[in-house]
């Protein structure tokens, strides 16, 4: 992964037209990279601090993973609404939960272009 200057969550929310379901007061967080995955141990093992986590899992356990790994935010894809307990936990842990109408592929592509694509030698 190329070293890049981070973009903050509020910029991603605006450019990707994401809906904010939790953590509206924490959108100043920098996003350093991203990880796409629905297997929690995969995300635990391979995501990095400050990553945007793109997933289709909506149950409360995703909040623990994001919190333990110091991820920047969770983006739920395909318009999947989080379970109510997920939002309760996210509010308690201060984890932003964002919602995208688009697929994981589209979201990841756009986020990658915004973060890494800003550097000409990234690809």
């Amino acid at each position: 992964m190329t070293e890049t200057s981070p973009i903050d969550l509020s910029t991603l929310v605006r450019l990707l037209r994401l809906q904010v379901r939790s953590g509206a007061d924490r959108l100043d967080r920098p996003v350093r990279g991203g990880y796409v995955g629905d297997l929690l141990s995969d995300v635990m093992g391979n995501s990095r601090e400050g990553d945007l986590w793109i997933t289709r899992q909506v149950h409360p356990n995703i909040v623990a993973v994001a919190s333990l790994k110091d991820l920047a935010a969770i983006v739920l894809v395909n318009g999947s609404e989080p379970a109510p307990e997920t939002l309760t936990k996210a509010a308690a842990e201060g984890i932003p939960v964002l919602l995208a109408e688009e697929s994981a592929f589209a979201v990841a592509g756009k986020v990658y272009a915004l973060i890494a694509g800003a550097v000409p030698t990234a690809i």
Partner: protein
Amino acid sequence: MADEPLIYENQFNVQGGNFNDAGKVASHIKAILKGFGIPSEAVRKTALVAYESEINIVSYARKGVIHLRLAPDQIVIETIDEGSGIADIELAMQEGYSTATDKIREMGFGAGMGLANIRNFSDIFQISSEPGKGTSLKMIIKWQP
């Protein structure tokens, strides 16, 4: 290790089958270590091994205990559970191998990566198990002030 002075120790109970609270103990341990000013890399490694151990107890045991011991140069996480145990530890350590039920997999658990993650993020890792009785894990994470 037995004669090493401890800065702190505590233990936490984990209830098998309770996926709603899964990760709670790991979050608690992380908060404690942050409170002691442990460097964030060691905190994250410990949080990960504690989390995977906790998920294993929730998924495969009736109940279990997670011990935390903080020494001046290392963090020790030890778990003891009463549950199904592991018949073939070598097989269970292989990435992708899992005996998880469909219900567990639907939640994104049971990817067969938990024990591999624990091994990869621990400086020292020990596992012992008795099928039908339970599993014990010991993980050591080194840290420097």
